[in-house]
C-alpha cells in the first residue's frame, strides 16, 4: 500500500479487500473488555480538522487511541489557523512535532495533496472539499460486505447532490472498482455531466430505480443548493428525490438503506424511514472505527525496510 491515502484511486481492489479483512480483526478488538492493542504505541497521530466534524474526528481519535497511539487534535476554532496561519506553516509545525500520521479534513479539494508536499508522515484524507472521503467509502463497503456478503453485480443507487458530494465520488469509485453496478440518481443540475465516465449510470427517476436495488445510499442535500438555484426549492427536491415512507415500499426485501450522516430528516429521508431495521446508519458509524484502525495500522505498520523486522 501507498504511504498516503488521499483518494480511493490510490487503492487497488486487492488493497481494499485487505483493508476490510484487517478491519474485521479490529472489530473483534472492539468486542474485548480491553479495546486496545499496542500496535501503534509511540506513534503520533494528528487530527487536523479545518472543518467542524465532531463525529468523524472522534471516530479517528478513538481509532488511534485503540491502537495505543498518541493523538493530537488540531481543530480550527480559536487556534492559530483561525488567525490566518497558512496550511504550509501549520504543516511544518506538525512536522516539527513529529507527527507520524496526519488525518486532514479541509474545505478545499486537494488540500491533502498540498499537505503531502510539506510533511514526511502519512497523510490520510478525512474529507477534502467536494473531492473525496475515502474512509467513509471504505466503511460503507465494509457495512455492505457484512450485510450482503458481496460486491460483484450488486445494484447500488447513490441519491442526491452528487455534484457537491465527496462521499458520492469516493463511494462510486470504490464500488465500481469492486465490480458493483452503480446508478447515480438526482436532479440533472446536481449530477456532473461527465459522471458516466466514472463507470456509472445516471437516472433522474428515483421511483424507476428503487425496485431494482440492493442498496439505496442517500446523500445529504444542503438547503444552500436552493439559494444557488440548482433546485427550485428543497420541498420540490424532497418530493421528487426523498426516500419517503411511500417510496420505501418500492425497495426489494433485504435492500439496505444507507446514509453517511448527518441526516436531514424530512428532506432526503423521512424520519420513520431512518429508523427502519434495513437502515444501517448506526452500523456504518460503528464500522467506521474499525476501518479507521485498519487504515492507520496498514499505513503506519509498515514503512521500514524490506527484510527488516523479525520472524519469530
Amino acid at each position, binding site marked *: *500500500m501507498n504511504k498516503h491515502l488521499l483518494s480511493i484511486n490510490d487503492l487497488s481492489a486487492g488493497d481494499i479487500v485487505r483493508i476490510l*479483512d*484487517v478491519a*474485521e*480483526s479490529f472489530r*473483534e*478488538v472492539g468486542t*474485548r*473488555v*480491553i479495546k*486496545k*492493542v*499496542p*500496535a*501503534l504505541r509511540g*506513534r503520533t497521530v494528528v487530527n487536523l480538522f479545518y472543518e467542524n466534524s465532531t463525529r468523524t474526528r472522534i471516530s479517528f481519535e478513538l481509532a488511534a487511541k485503540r*491502537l495505543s497511539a498518541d493523538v493530537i487534535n488540531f481543530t480550527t476554532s480559536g487556534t492559530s489557523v483561525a488567525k490566518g496561519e497558512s496550511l504550509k506553516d501549520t504543516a511544518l509545525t506538525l512536522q516539527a512535532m513529529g507527527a507520524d500520521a496526519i488525518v486532514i479534513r479541509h474545505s478545499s479539494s486537494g488540500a491533502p495533496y498540498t499537505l503531502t508536499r510539506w510533511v514526511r508522515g502519512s497523510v490520510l484524507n478525512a474529507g477534502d472539499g467536494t473531492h473525496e472521503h475515502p474512509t467513509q467509502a471504505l466503511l460503507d463497503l465494509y457495512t455492505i460486505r457484512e450485510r450482503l456478503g458481496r460486491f460483484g453485480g450488486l445494484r447500488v443507487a447513490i441519491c442526491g447532490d452528487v455534484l457537491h458530494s465527496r462521499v458520492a465520488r469516493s463511494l462510486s469509485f470504490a464500488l465500481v472498482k469492486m465490480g458493483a453496478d452503480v446508478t447515480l440518481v438526482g436532479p440533472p443540475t446536481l449530477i456532473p455531466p461527465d459522471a458516466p465516465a466514472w463507470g456509472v449510470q445516471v437516472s433522474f427517476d428515483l421511483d424507476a430505480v428503487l425496485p431494482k436495488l440492493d442498496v439505496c445510499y442517500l446523500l445529504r442535500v444542503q438547503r444552500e443548493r436552493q439559494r444557488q438555484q440548482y433546485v427550485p426549492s428543497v420541498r420540490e427536491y424532497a418530493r421528487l428525490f426523498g426516500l419517503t415512507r411511500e417510496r420505501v415500499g418500492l425497495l426489494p426485501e433485504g435492500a439496505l438503506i444507507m446514509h453517511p450522516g448527518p441526516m436531514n430528516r424530512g428532506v432526503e429521508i423521512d424520519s420513520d424511514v431512518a429508523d427502519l431495521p434495513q437502515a444501517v446508519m448506526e452500523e456504518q458509524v460503528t464500522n467506521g472505527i474499525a476501518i479507521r484502525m485498519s487504515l492507520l*495500522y*496498514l*499505513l*503506519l*505498520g*509498515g*514503512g*521500514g*525496510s*524490506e*527484510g*527488516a*523486522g*523479525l*520472524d*519469530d
Partner: protein
Amino acid sequence: MGSVRLLDGAEIRRAVTRIAHEILERNKGAQRLVLVGIAARGDDLARRLAAEIERIEGARVPVGVLDITFYRDDIGMRAEAPEVHETRIDFDINGTTVVLVDDVLFSGRTVRAAMDALVDFGRPAAIQLAVLVDRGHRELPIRADFVGKNAPTRRDEDVRVALIETDGEDAVYVEERP
C-alpha cells in the same frame, strides 16, 4: 536448496499425543485448562491437542485462537504491515491455566507478544507453553513447558511446519534460506 525433513506425519502425531499426556500429567487433569493456539498453525495444533485430551481423559477443553500481529515488537520496521489473522477467545480466561500452543519456538518474541495479548483478555492463574519444535536461538528469557522435538538449527536456516489443515501434508522441514 537444501531441505531436510525433520519430522514426518507419524512423528508429528506421536509428539502431539505425548504432549497431550504431559499436559494432563503436569496439570493433574484437565480442570480449569484452556488451550490457546497462536495463529497461524498454532491453532491447528491446539485443536489436535484438545482432541487428544478428549480421547485420553474424556474432557472437553476450550480452544481459542490468538493472532499476535498487533502485539509484535517490530511493527513499523518492515516494509509492509504484517498479515493479520483471526483472534477468537470465546471463553473467560480468568483463573484458568492457559496452555499457549505454537508450531515453532525460536527467538521467543512471538510468545512474549502472545502473553501480552493474553493478559488483555483476563488474568490467567498460570500460562504454560507447548511447541512442536524448539529450534533454539532464544532472544528473550522464554522457555517451553512441552516440546515435541528439540532441533538445534543455524540462524540462517528456516524451519517450515506443514500441517494437513493448512498445507495438505504433515511434515516439518529444515531449509537453507535462499
